[in-house]
């Protein structure tokens, strides 16, 4: 894959890549002009459906299918929400896109709004991205001046405005109905589905929520065609008629213990080992990988021996991970403790649990308490079974929570304890030789007065 020519990141190394003039000089807004002249909204949806584009935000839902759920006979208005609340640990591709190529993002949004008949779009941007905010606001102002946004875009009867809506530090706002609730001015408690946002979303109107990278894929599919898109990536499984495949380019973020952490664009399906060794310079100081998160913390971990799986939508499932997620690959080397890893993971999800569903609200905090105890040398072997019991009982998959945050909290627990159990057992036995077989937890006050 050494000869792969980046498409999504084609502009980012240009001087002043965030400026409209630079973007236009590279062919920017040419696709918008052409699509408005040549295609109907339904025609755009047809192209996206034919491309088998799947959402890049984590769930991998087919974008064209999502759009086709919008009711045909609804009087409107329709809304577009752009999910730029990128908060999954290990994930930063949207940030780079918005900072270095905001016009590519905006052109993708305009085209997607045209397809979905939305006249208002909100970019839900996490608060922690001040540079992305500045670049987006400047780019939007440039577009309004140029007639790419506003009334009757480029003389067409399609009108659109895009607003940036800043978040306030809550991971749950990346869940699409949590995002909608937050936009409406409420606490970001995810909604029970159905109804799905396409039928009843923002302000109770038909709404599409799409990730930033997904929308930039839309742009390039409309520019180069669905056949181009389907010439890249992993084809659908011929034995499974419902498999939409893993087509197109993908942004992979690599962080942790590698020589060259960063963002790379490759065809979907690059083997994880190749990504780490050829595109991130391998492990730091020539060490060995111990555990690798394939797609953002919530997807769980893989062992070194599992690294040959392809990073497409189905590869990580084969080794028990939750999926491709956000393709934020986190590499941990042999010096890092998996107890520290799991404690960090559980602490994150406990902090970010919105508190709406009891199994997640209570389960995530209980898991942190146990891991703190294990770290402090008061662990019991029984804790490992309890942790797994919690993990098996929270989430959409067991059917106990409204949204998938709890599944995301559970997967690191399940995969870590299944794949690295020995390390936990050794740690518990060594640090708590007198009490590791205990069946009841030590009294809370005994910890305080230790």
């Amino acid at each position, binding site marked *: 894959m050494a000869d792969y020519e980046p498409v999504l990141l084609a502009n980012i190394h240009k001087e002043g890549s965030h400026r409209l003039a630079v973007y236009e000089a590279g062919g920017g807004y040419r696709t918008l002009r052409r699509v408005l002249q040549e295609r109907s909204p339904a025609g755009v949806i047809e192209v996206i459906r034919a491309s088998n584009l799947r959402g890049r935000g984590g769930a991998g839902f087919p974008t064209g299918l999502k759009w086709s759920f919008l009711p045909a006979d609804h009087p409107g*208005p329709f809304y577009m929400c752009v999910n730029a609340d*990128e*908060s999954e*640990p290990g994930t*930063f591709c949207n940030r780079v896109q918005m900072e270095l190529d905001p016009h590519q993002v905006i052109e993708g949004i305009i085209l997607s709004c045209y397809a979905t008949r939305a006249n208002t779009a909100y970019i839900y941007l996490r608060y922690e991205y001040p540079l992305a905010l500045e670049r987006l606001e400047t780019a939007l102002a440039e577009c309004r001046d140029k007639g790419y946004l506003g009334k009757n875009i480029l003389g067409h009867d399609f009108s659109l405005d895009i607003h940036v809506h800043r978040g*306030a530090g809550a991971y749950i706002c990346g869940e699409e109905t949590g995002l909608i609730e937050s936009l409406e001015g*409420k606490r970001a408690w995810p909604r029970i589905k159905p109804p799905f946002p396409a039928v009843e979303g923002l302000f109770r109107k038909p709404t599409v929520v799409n990730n930033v990278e997904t929308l930039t894929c839309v742009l390039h599919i409309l520019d180069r065609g669905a056949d181009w898109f389907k010439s890249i990536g992993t084809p659908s499984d011929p034995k499974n008629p419902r498999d939409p495949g893993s087509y197109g380019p993908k942004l992979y973020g690599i*962080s942790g213990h590698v020589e060259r952490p*960063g963002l790379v664009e490759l065809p979907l399906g690059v083997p994880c080992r190749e990504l780490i060794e050829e595109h991130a310079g391998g492990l730091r100081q020539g060490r060995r990988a111990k555990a690798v998160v394939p797609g953002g913390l919530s997807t769980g971990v893989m062992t070194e021996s599992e690294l040959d799986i392809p990073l497409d939508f189905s590869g990580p499932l084969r080794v028990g991970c939750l999926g491709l997620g956000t393709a934020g690959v986190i590499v941990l080397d042999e010096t890092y403790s998996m107890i*520290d890893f799991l404690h960090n993971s559980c602490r994150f999800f406990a902090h970010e649990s919105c508190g709406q569903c009891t199994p997640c609200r209570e389960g995530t905090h209980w898991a942190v308490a146990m891991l703190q105890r294990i770290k402090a040398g008061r662990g019991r072997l029984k804790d490992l079974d309890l942790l797994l019991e919690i993990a098996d009982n929270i989430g959409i998959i067991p059917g106990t929570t409204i949204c998938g945050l709890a599944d995301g909290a559970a997967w690191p627990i399940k995969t870590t304890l299944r794949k690295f159990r020995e390390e936990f057992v050794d740690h518990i036995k060594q640090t708590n030789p007198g009490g590791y077989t205990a069946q009841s937890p030590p009294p809370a006050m005994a910890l305080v007065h230790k």
Partner: protein
Amino acid sequence: MPTTERVLSDPIRTAIQAYYPRYPNRRAVLLPALHVVHEHLGHVPQQAVVEIAEMLELAPADVLDTLSFYGFFKQVEPMGRLRVWVCRSISCAACGGEDLLEYLCRRLGIRPGETTADGRVTLEFAECLGACEHAPAMLAGDTLYKKLTKEKIDDFLASLPS
């Protein structure tokens, strides 16, 4: 006790009203309004909650419900002049982020969530800044510090305006 003196000045009100045309109803202006107030006052005191509620035609309890959900907003005391976030999530933690947070705590003499006595800095831990390729990362105001080290923290502290 909430004071009865108005805390939302005219410029704050104008800044909030500028958001009205963006949304089909007033409630959706709430998060932008909280940001405006937080930026101007350094926190959102109870009296501001009452006044925002009046402006947006909501009950104060409704405003408080949203306000208190988002960890970003300070309610009780104003922030320091600079708010500093040190990431403690996995990519940063694996590269030493938690030790650096601890170091900064010691240097400033405060814990995360607190403000220095001279009002210069409010320190926070962050749950993933989305800057994992630059781990360990720190966001101070609008400036992202990449590949943070103790030396960089020392330089940063030395550069703070008094």
